[in-house]
């Protein structure tokens, strides 16, 4: 059985800082990382493989430097890795991204004798684009049942049994036959750290295979910017709100002033 994990390279956004003078993003020195939930996806794929057998195949669409996140997946234990890279893929919205990923999965399945039983695992959302749309759209592209927001997952025969979070007070056990697509939350597991041998192997022995638009027989009208329906029109730093009334005086005075203000605003 083939288990695909979809991995996105993202800027480590928690370290993105705003330059207070120019009000712009400081990107210098921000490392690119594997989207955190995608490590959970790879971990789940590996643990299913360890129990039930199969092959773990890591996929990423991105610029050539995204090869690094695939090397990391190989170091964790993935069997194969494919980088979908082409200038024609750039500027993709989620519709075009899911189409490209879907073409690659179909091609890999076809080239290996049309396996019918497979599982695709995505992260629920990426920390940069943050739409959580690629998983469901990829499921639609492949015509698969989808289960999103998965916090527990188990394989039983030709079925996966999952626990899906709906709201803080409700989870649902949902099962689906394979093939299927699931997108996972970070609660699903704790990703392993690659071993030294794993890292050496991934960088020296193993290959990241490249696929371009031609290899995927992708139609230009469905990929990259041209295949995208949404367009980024404008990007800006959120403006600061607030009236900046910093109260002054002793604690007692400040508190009294605050209560007076709140009373005026009819909040007390």
């Amino acid at each position, binding site marked *: 059985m083939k288990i695909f994990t979809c991995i996105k390279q993202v800027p480590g*956004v928690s370290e993105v800082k705003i330059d207070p003078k*120019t009000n*712009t*993003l400081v990107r210098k020195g921000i490392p690119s990382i594997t989207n955190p939930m995608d490590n959970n996806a790879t971990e789940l794929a590996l643990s299913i493989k360890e129990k039930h057998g199969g092959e773990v195949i890591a996929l990423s669409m991105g610029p050539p430097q995204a090869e690094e996140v695939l090397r990391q997946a190989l170091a964790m234990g993935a069997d194969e890795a494919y980088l979908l890279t082409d*200038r024609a893929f750039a500027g993709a919205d989620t*519709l075009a991204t899911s189409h490209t990923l879907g073409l690659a999965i179909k091609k890999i399945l076809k080239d290996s004798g049309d396996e019918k039983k497979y599982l695709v695992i995505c992260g629920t959302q990426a*920390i*940069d*684009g*943050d*739409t*959580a*749309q690629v998983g*469901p*759209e990829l499921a*639609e592209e492949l015509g698969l*049942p989808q*289960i999103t927001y998965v916090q527990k997952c188990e394989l039983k025969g030709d079925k996966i*049994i999952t626990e899906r979070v*709906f*709201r*803080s*007070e*409700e*989870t*649902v*056990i949902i*099962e*689906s036959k394979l093939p299927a697509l699931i997108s996972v939350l970070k609660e699903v597991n704790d990703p392993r750290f690659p071993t030294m041998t794993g890292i050496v192997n991934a960088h020296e022995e193993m290959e990241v295979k490249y696929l371009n638009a031609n290899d995927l027989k992708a139609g*230009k009208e469905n990929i*990259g*910017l*041209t295949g*995208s*329906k*949404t*367009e*980024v*029109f*404008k*990007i*800006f*730093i*959120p403006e*600061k*709100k*607030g009236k900046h*009334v*910093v*109260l002054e005086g002793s*604690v*007692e005075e*400040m*508190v009294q002033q*605050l*209560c007076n203000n*709140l009373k005026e*605003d009819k*909040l*007390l």
Partner: protein
Amino acid sequence: MSITVDSELCSGCGACVASCPYGGIEVIDDKACITEDCNLCGACVEACTMDAIIWTKEEVGIEKVDLSQYKGVWVIAEHYKGNIHKVAYQLLGKGRELADTLHVSLTLVILGDAFDDQLEELSMYGADEIIYVKSKILKNYYSDLYTKTLTELITENKPEIVLIGATATGRDFAPRVAKRLNAGLTADCTGLEIDPKTNNLFQTRPTFGGNIMATIRTPNSRPQMATVRPGTFKKPEAKKRKVNIRQIDYDYSEKDSVTKIVKVINREKSKVNLEDAEIIVAGGRGVGKKENFKIIEELAEAIGAEIGGSRVTVELNWIPQDQQVGQTGKTVTPKLYIACGISGAIQHLVGMENSDIIVAINKDPSAPIFNVAHYGIVGDLHKVIPALIENIKKVKSAED
């Protein structure tokens, strides 16, 4: 498809560099240059005041859709245990505004099994029409049945805008519907506006962990679909109005769904409902330790508030997860939000900055929370809060 810089026109001002989220453009020797990291998103093209950045899109025989066939604004309601999720009301408020600007009608769509008695109440929030898809099995949520039904309805009726709550349910079916329709979908919008020039929907959303806002448009296809986080817009006042109700009966059975719901697990329902609270007192790391959270509770009790906190306080186990405010927690819009010992990281601010009045109590005068606060008190919360409680009690007893 490419982005190039006309170096004759470029003034080297750097506005493009500031606009790029990818580090894809740099100013070298006073001229902008596109780098390897360019993702062709086109943000720099809009930012350039000299018209020096040229964005060439190849026309590759994409069939042009006749946009004028699409009319009307739709809101898709979701529900839980027989109650319509409140985000649907909030979307009706915004949807009404958009529909009025476009001079079109507003439709509420419900997929469910027992809403007959609620339709009258639901007609009071701005819709001109309610489409009620009735089927026993739709009491529960099924990804594939929602997708199938909504895709059929949208294909047949051709609305120009479809709004969906960005809940765990909405974010499950919205992308699937969008993909089947080959339509653009913008996630987690915090602003929706009609472009007066083109009548396109401008959809503004936070990205990069809330550090950047992006305005997205879907200029060449319809419908324009968007999900919106609960708490972003306000529920409109209820008003009696004439509404056309269309009921469509579907004869679905469990076999029609490819996934099977095995069991629904209800966890202990949280007592706190932050999204509906009028006043919230929230604590951060500055509270110091778990035991100290008591004074937050006392303040909440005195002023009649619910309790929230930053992610740090959740991680430290001072308060439960469902009381976390922020990007990965709840988005709240109370009348009054009192932040105590919270620094005001962007991920926290995106969850509370639309509150009507924000009070910040923090000992560090340079804490970013003061940038959004209407009233700020610089001081040790262990001194300020007890004094504040005293004062509130005085004010309240004077009223009685």
